[in-house]
Structures are given as C-alpha cells and as structure tokens.
C-alpha cells in the first residue's frame, strides 16, 4: 500500500467508526416513547396531504447537467495548470519547436474559448434564468 493511501484510509475508517459509534451510543442511552403523531412527517402542524416524493422543477436537472459539463472541463484544466512549469523541459527536449510553450498556451486558449462559447450558449438558452 502506498504511504499516502494508508493514513487516508485509516482516517476515513476511524471517522466512520466515530459516527457509527455515536449513533450506537445514542440509540442505547436515549429513551423510546413512540406516539402516532411522532410517526407523521412534520409539516408545521398540518396533516401531510400526500407523499413528499413528487415531481419537482426540471431546472434542478438542467443545473445538474450544466454543472457536469463545466466541472469536467474544469478538471481538464488542472493537469495543464500543474504541468505548465514542466513545459519548459519538454520544449528543451524538442529543439526544432522553439515556441513549444506558446503552442501549448494557444491550445489552452482554444479550449477555454470553447468553454466560453458553451457558457454563452447556455446563458442565451435561458439555462440560468430562475423565475
């Protein structure tokens, strides 16, 4: 196991154990007094009319899709941001391409430009309009 993964897994495991342990202690110590009213969903004292799991606004779905698009494109930018400083070394390895860093940077501009176009399109289509 890698020296990083071990401590992280240990941490996550102990944190989960703490959460489960607290729940267990709570259910052992606390009292239990059940009444029919307690079984009902709390809706400010009104009797609930129907099940809560009904249709909801489709905009939440659209926002989720927009998020997926932009977040994935954002993730693609991270490797570039990290390796940006190393591009120099690659340029030295390819002496027939003296403007190698500039080419890489131009590619980034094209990528972000397309991202921007998509953003403008989504905006014009009213994706971000919330009545």
């Amino acid at each position: 196991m890698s020296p990083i993964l071990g401590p992280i897994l240990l941490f996550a495991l102990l944190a989960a154990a703490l959460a489960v342990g607290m729940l267990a202690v709570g259910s052992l110590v606390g009292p239990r007094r059940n009444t029919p009213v307690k079984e009902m969903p709390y809706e400010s004292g009104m009797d609930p009319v129907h099940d809560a799991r009904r249709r909801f606004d489709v905009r939440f779905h659209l926002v989720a899709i927009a998020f997926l698009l932009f977040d994935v494109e954002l993730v693609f930018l991270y490797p570039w941001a990290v390796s940006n400083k190393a591009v120099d070394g690659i340029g030295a390895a390819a002496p027939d391409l003296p403007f190698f860093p500039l080419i890489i940077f131009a590619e980034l501009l094209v990528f972000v430009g397309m991202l921007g176009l998509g953003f403008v399109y989504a905006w014009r289509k009213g994706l971000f309009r919330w009545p």
Partner: protein
Amino acid sequence: MTEALVKVAFAIGGLMTAAAYLVLLERRMAAWFQDRIGPNRVGIPLTRIRLWGLGQPLADGGKFILKEEYTPAHVDRTMYVLAPISILTAALAVFAVIPFGGALPSLDVGGLGWEHPVPLVVAPGADIGLVYVFALNSIAVYGVILGGWASNNKYSLLGGLRSSAQLIAYELPLGLAILGVVLASGSLNLDAIILSQASTGTWLAFSQPLGFVIFVVAAFAEAARLPFDLPECEQELIGGYHTEYSGIKLLLFLVAEFLHMITAAFLIVILFLGGWHLWGLTGATAETNWLTALLRTAVLLGKTLLVILFFMWVRWSWPRFRFDQLMAFAWKLLLPLGLAHFLVIAVLDQIRTYVLAPRLGETLSAWLLVIPGVGVCIAAWIVVGLTGPRDSTRPRRPGSAARGVSTA
C-alpha cells in the same frame, strides 16, 4: 502506521473538540452582536463555578445523547441513517491531507522520540491533496440530498434539492479560483502551495485578489453559511434537509456543518493567506527547528481562527439571498468572473515564467504581479458595478421613477 494512528487520533479529537467549542464561540459572538449575554452559566456541575460557560459544549453533547434516538416510520430507513454518517465521515476525512503547520524536527529524549522530522499532516506528501479535498467536499452533497430524500418530508426534499443545486453551482467558481493558485504554485500539494508562497513572501491574496474574493464567496456557499444558508433557512424550510432528524443524528449533521466551515477556513488560509508563513517570524524553507515549528503551527491556527471569526461576523451582518438571486449570483456573476480571472492569471503566469522570472528573479517578479492583480480586481469591481442589477428601491435619475409609474 503508529505515527499515522497517533496523528489521526489527535486530528479527530482536536477537530471534534474544536467544533464543539466553536459552537460556544459562535453563540457568544451572536450574543455580543445582538447586545445580549449568551451562554455564560454552565461550568463545573454541582458547584457554583461558572468558568465563563466553558461547560456548555459538554452539556449540549450530553443532552444530544440523552434525547430520544428516533426514526420516524415514513422514512427510508437505510438512507435516513446513512446520510448523517456519510456527511460526518467525509467532513472529517478531508483533514487527512490538510497541514496543521510545518514539520516537527527530530526529537530524542532518552531513547524515546523520532529520528526524522514529522510533518504535521496525517498523509504527508499527498501530491493531489487539493483534488482529494474537493472530491471529499463534494460528498457532502450526497449526505444532504440523501437526508432530504429519505426523510419523505416536503420541507426536507426542498431543502435537499436547493442545497444540492447550490453546492454544485458554487463548486465551479471555487474550482476556477483554485486554478489560479495551482498555476502560481505549480502544484496540487498543499504543503508545496504554502512553501511557494513563503519562498517569495507574496501571499496569493495579494497577487490574485479577485481569485481570493471569488474563493471566499464560493467557500461561504459551500459551507452553507449565511448569507448562503438556503439549505436550512429556518424561517421557510424549518431546517431544510434535517427537519426530520433528532438526537444524535441531528448532532452529526450540525458537527459536519461546523467541520465544513473549519475546512473552508483552513483552505482560505492555506491557498491564499500564506498558510504558516508570516514575514520575519516563521522562516521560508522546509527546514525547521523547534521554535519555528511551533510558531508555524501557532500562526496557521491563529489565521484560521481569524477567518472563522470572520465567518461568524458575516453571519450576523448580511440577510439571506433569495434562491433565484443565489443561482444568478453563481452562474451569471461568479462563473464568468472566474473564467476571466483564470485567463488573465494564465497570461500573467506565462509572462512571469518566460519574461520576468529569468531576468528579475522569483521574488521580485512575484511582487510585480501584485500590480496587475489588483488592477484586475478593481476593473472587475467597476464592470460588475456598471452591469449588475440596480438597487430597485432607488430611482436612477430624477423623473425616471415617474415614467415607470405612467407606463405601469
């Protein structure tokens, strides 16, 4: 593994204690802002010693445990129990890669101690630390939406939906602001990010003030603190996704919420405010002696505490956003600003790497970038001020209000 176990125990114990006492601090701050006294009574039980209310968190914890552990009949039991567990586990596990200071130098006291310097982070050298932090932060969405869905309550469902939309919307500007940091420091390792700021002495809040502002705003939204606490909003949704939770399960949600705030404060300090670095006090290299090691931890935790106090200050200073304002703010303001800022920083970084740094050296070129950074921030401020929504309560020009009435 022993070393890791000791660190994990310290981290979890410290964090849970910190969360408990920050609740007390927040209540005392709230009382101070609202000109009342706040919880100052609970001290040592069965005596008259009050200790300025320092016993309050313990009493609160005891109360939570002794309350009825109740699962209503109308919920989805598995999801209902899983939600608080997952949210607390993720909120704690984030701290596996967050440094709590520099490294402690080696120690030898009569055979006890350690040979190598001990970094004050649970998983030292995690090269994708930043990605890990954001991956686990995103898991908070699962806890919230699971809780809202499983509760089978309309308030909870609405709170969960709103919350998930908010958290994912503000993750984009957050990621864009961080890209600037990654560009400037060339690493995703949180230790390396601090070191790169310390080596030039230029905190990234100076050279990228616009990114700093975007990050702080988005971090407030990710931590679901006022003015972005729409997932809860007591007045409309009676607590939102945790309406149906009680007892220790509610406690898990509340602790996780405070841990999110602590994470956000740590990230603000580490990414933009120089981490453990303070000029002329903590040194600027990875090597430490005992004095600087302790100073670094003190500086980092002190800065974090200041940022947390800022969180609490903001809570009592701004009213809550409306949901459409919240979404418009994320998508129509922060996201384009973040994109523009990222492009400017990318160009500036190219100039620094290939033009300024070889001629002027790293430190001077880093300080020189402060000028365009501040310029970009002011330009963005002016653009937003000119294009943003206007104050509808105030007429733009004399006479324009009268025209509005006549057309209506």
